[in-house]
């Protein structure tokens, strides 16, 4: 029996439409002619016989048509089965070839797996942040409402809800830190969300246990838990409903637990531990105050309503509300309506999210570059393999295999490689993502990402693998198929100039890309080194932080402020305590406040802010350049005062700031002092103008005691006891201030780790690429080397011959890479502290490393060249 594969090679090509029609016509004509001939034999005349034959046959045209249709169907089926057969053949051949050279195959698959893992992991993070829908029913109908500022007062929200009908319903909510008291230890801090009663009705997510509250809920002392809270704090107790929890000093009843992953409409990453209904409006002053804007508002749009339509309706309603209540702090000047999904969800969180997005973009770019280097490597391997298979391919071409068919065969091999690499890459990515979540969990901000693989991530990995296969497979395949049969058959090997050029180009590209990555990782590493030396402008060593948050609804601000001052006085006299101060913002801890300050009447300036008690500057050792610290006399009722940092003072008044006046919160404030600059948000920042206001005059419920003490235990004990006496429900979160610095260093550390990993990976891959090229060259030029040896070339000449070419390639790649790296680094400015994008040490280091690795990679092939035995070579040639 003939082997089907051989038969297939000789199969006639597909028939055209015209040919099919001609065949069908011929078959019918033949039948009629045969019949006519028979009839003639029986004695009919030519014409009679013909006429009768035609008559007997019936509708000739119909028969032809049916014939054509039939043939076409058959042809299609044949084509399909041939393609499937080819595919099966390609795959089995591909697998055989991969298995036959396990070393290079495994290297290629691993290379690809690592590169795809990096890309997939990066995309998973982006996916969790931007693409996964908010886990609520029909999230596209939900829209956030912002009226100039992010928050709104409760009465304004209620007016807005009554006056607009573009929303099925509007919901108000606010974040609320609550302390869960426990009998034997300090209260546990929980991130709560206080919502209007219609919250769950609007969000339309049923609880997994128990019930939620809704419109008409008679009680306000109820709480709904998040799944993770239920698990972590209550051991997933199935009979949790009905349990009474001491929250912020009140007993509230657990009525339900939300399903896992539920976070309301908060952007990805934010954790909410529990949900509480907002208090009865009549019972709370905050809920009647139009000047206290604390609530965020979102709603479910009526079907068919667009965001601009909703915004227009809200603007009209907003104007009416403002006209009715001119004293309100809600101006409705700039009403915006936007989606709760995607990038829009992060609106108003620019300072937190922009660096994150930028970092994601950087990681995506780096992962992409690594993937390209990996592709270049594999392309190099494939070109080498194609050269070795020149004869095989030439034989197949000579036997009549189509060139298209050959290309398909070679691309199938590439796809097999890519899919194997991609599959392994996804597994690796899963492992990497576990690390990401662990790192996120260590941050002091409560965050969690839904990094589970979904269809989108898998599609991304699949698409990327396919793309990679095309990138590294197509060029070698086309080149192989285009080869000249005769010359290939005549002289088994022999390098084509074009192929050499392609491989050289690949090596230049690889070295270039890896140099760029090395520059970036070098800059990050340098920046990490520098950042430990950066002077934050304050001294965190020996300072203890005690964070706490009071609930405005449970604790009267005036009384609380007074109690806190008492606590500070008692702390000042505690054993071991050197000094004490209280502030609302801890520098470098990702907390911040920004105020609008008016200079000289009209000039507005947005500045960083902090609210302090006397003693804070001394405690963290920020020195005064002019004027005085706050005193206990700077209290409500006394003249309003402020302290500025150096930058602000310089910009505002050229050093003569003390004594000048500015407006903050519609109040006239006199500058009484200027302090030296210190870092506020990140260690890498250029200092922003900062204003300090006395805490006594500007109470805020989130605050932190700073205690410089030699006796931590005594200070902690006194503090917690005092706070518990004043507010038993408030948690006290004690940590050394040096922790803050490690948080500040965190981005630099992550950056250095990630870019370093990518850089090293790129270097290894590029080294492999160089090695492959040199080894290949030496193998191709064995005969030439032999001849050179015979005519008297010394070992050193041969080494120079082999190495110099690569050195030249590497130098070109290096030049390109350093340029691109430095250019790209200017974009990284916000991440690299105190290091110039053209940092000489980094650039030189990269150059030395790349050239060194290039030489090292050329070494073993060069040795092989030196060892070439001319006799053997010349005999074989």
């Amino acid at each position: 029996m003939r082997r089907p594969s051989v038969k297939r090679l000789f199969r006639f090509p597909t028939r055209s439409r015209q040919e099919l029609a001609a065949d069908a016509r011929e078959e019918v004509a033949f039948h009629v002619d045969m019949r006519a001939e028979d009839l003639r034999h029986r004695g009919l005349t030519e014409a009679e016989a013909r006429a009768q034959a035609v008559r007997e046959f019936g509708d000739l045209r119909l028969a032809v048509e049916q014939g054509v249709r039939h043939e076409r169907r058959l042809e299609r089926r044949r084509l399909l089965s041939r393609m499937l057969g080819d595919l099966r053949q390609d795959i089995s051949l591909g697998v055989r070839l991969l298995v036959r050279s396990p070393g290079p195959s495994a290297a290629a698959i691993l290379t690809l797996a690592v590169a795809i893992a990096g890309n997939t992991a990066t995309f998973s993070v982006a996916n969790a942040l931007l693409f996964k829908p908010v886990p609520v029913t029909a999230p596209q109908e939900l829209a956030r409402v912002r009226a100039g500022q992010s928050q709104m007062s409760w009465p304004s929200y209620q007016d807005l809800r009554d006056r607009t009908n573009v929303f099925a319903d509007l919901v108000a909510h606010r974040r609320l830190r609550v302390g869960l008291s426990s009998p034997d230890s300090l209260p546990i801090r929980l991130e709560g969300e206080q919502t209007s009663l219609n919250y769950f009705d609007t969000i339309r997510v049923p609880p997994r246990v128990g019930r939620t509250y809704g419109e008409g809920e008679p009680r306000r002392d109820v709480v709904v838990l998040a799944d993770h809270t239920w698990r972590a704090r209550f051991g997933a107790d199935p009979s949790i409903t009905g349990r009474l929890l001491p929250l912020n000093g009140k007993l509230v009843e657990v009525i339900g637990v939300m399903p896992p992953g539920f976070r309301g409409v908060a952007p990805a990453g934010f954790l909410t531990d529990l949900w509480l209904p907002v208090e009865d409006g009549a019972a709370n002053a905050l809920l009647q105050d139009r000047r206290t804007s604390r609530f965020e508002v979102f709603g479910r749009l009526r079907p068919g309503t667009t965001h601009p339509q909703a915004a227009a309706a809200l603007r009209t309603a907003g104007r009416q509300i403002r006209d009715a209540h001119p004293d309100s702090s809600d101006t409705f000047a700039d009403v915006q309506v936007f989606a709760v999904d995607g990038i829009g969800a992060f609106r108003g969180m620019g300072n937190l999210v922009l660096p994150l997005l930028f970092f994601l973009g950087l990681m995506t770019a780096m992962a992409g570059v690594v993937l390209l280097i990996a592709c270049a490597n594999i392309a190099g391997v494939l070109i080498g393999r194609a050269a070795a298979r020149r004869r095989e391919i030439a034989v197949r071409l000579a036997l009549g295999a189509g060139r298209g068919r050959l290309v398909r065969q070679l691309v199938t091999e590439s796809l097999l490689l890519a899919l194997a690499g991609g599959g392994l890459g996804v597994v690796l990515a899963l492992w990497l993502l576990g690390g990401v979540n662990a790192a996120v969990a260590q941050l002091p901000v409560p965050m969690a990402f839904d990094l589970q693989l979904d269809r989108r991530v898998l599609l991304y990995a699949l698409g990327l693998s396919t793309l990679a296969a095309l990138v590294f497979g197509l060029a070698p395949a086309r080149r192989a198929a285009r080869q000249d049969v005769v010359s290939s058959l005549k002289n088994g090997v022999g390098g084509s100039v074009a192929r050499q050029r392609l491989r050289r180009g690949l090596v230049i590209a690889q070295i270039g890309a890896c140099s760029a990555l090395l520059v970036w990782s070098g800059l990050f590493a340098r920046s990490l080194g520098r950042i430990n030396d950066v002077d934050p402008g304050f001294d965190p060593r020996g300072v203890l932080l005690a964070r706490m948050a009071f609930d405005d609804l449970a604790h009267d601000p005036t009384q609380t402020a007074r109690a806190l001052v008492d606590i500070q006085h008692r702390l000042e006299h505690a054993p071991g305590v050197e000094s004490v101060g209280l502030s609302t913002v801890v520098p470098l801890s990702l907390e911040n406040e920004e105020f609008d300050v008016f200079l000289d009447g009209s000039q507005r300036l947005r500045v960083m802010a902090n609210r302090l008690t006397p003693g804070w500057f001394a405690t963290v050792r920020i020195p005064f350049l002019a004027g005085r610290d706050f005193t206990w006399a700077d209290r409500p009722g006394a003249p309003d005062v402020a302290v500025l940092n150096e930058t602000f003072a310089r910009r505002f008044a050229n050093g003569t700031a003390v004594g000048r006046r500015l407006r903050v919160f519609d109040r006239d404030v006199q500058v009484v002092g200027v302090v030296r600059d210190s870092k506020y948000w990140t260690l890498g920042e250029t200092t922003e103008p900062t204003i300090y206001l006395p805490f006594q005059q500007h109470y805020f419920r989130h605050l932190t005691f700073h205690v410089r003490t030699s006796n931590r235990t005594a200070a902690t004990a006194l503090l917690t006891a005092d706070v518990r006496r004043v507010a038993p429900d408030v948690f006290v979160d004690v940590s050394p201030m040096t922790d803050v610095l490690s948080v500040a260093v965190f981005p630099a550390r992550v950056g250095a780790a990630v870019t370093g990993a990518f850089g090293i990976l790129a270097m290894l891959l590029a080294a492999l690429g160089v090695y492959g090229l040199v080894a290949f060259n030496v193998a191709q030029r064995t005969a030439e080397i032999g001849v050179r040896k015979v005519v008297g070339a010394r070992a050193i000449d041969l080494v120079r011959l082999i190495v110099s070419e690569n050195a030249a390639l590497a130098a070109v790649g290096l030049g390109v890479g350093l340029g691109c790296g430095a250019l790209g680094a200017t974009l990284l400015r916000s991440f690299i502290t105190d290091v110039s994008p053209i940092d000489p040490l980094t650039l030189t280091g990269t150059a030395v490393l790349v050239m060194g690795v290039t030489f090292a990679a050329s070494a073993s092939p060069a040795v092989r060249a030196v060892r070439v035995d001319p006799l053997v070579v010349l005999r074989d040639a």
Partner: protein
Amino acid sequence: MSPTDITPLLKGTVDLLILQALRQGPSHGYEVSRFVHERTDGVLTVEEAALYQALHRLEARQWIEAEWGLSDNNRRAKYYRLTDAGRKQLRSGTSVWKRYANAVFKLLEPT
């Protein structure tokens, strides 16, 4: 009974007749129709339209294969050939038909 009266009965058996005709070896359509006509002493005639439709059907089922060849008078003609599957189908079809015919005979013949 005249041959035309019997034709409607043929419908289900045309396939079987064609397969049987091809058992002798590759034939073109006209040969198949002659074969049926002559072997039944002119009792059965397959109409041309039905014949070619049946040939197409059988080819689609892969019971027969078509190939272009030269006829006795040196003309290009399409030859149909039984495949292994076709041979098997012919065997089982024949036995089914025989059982059917026997049953009909038993019923119709006066005992």
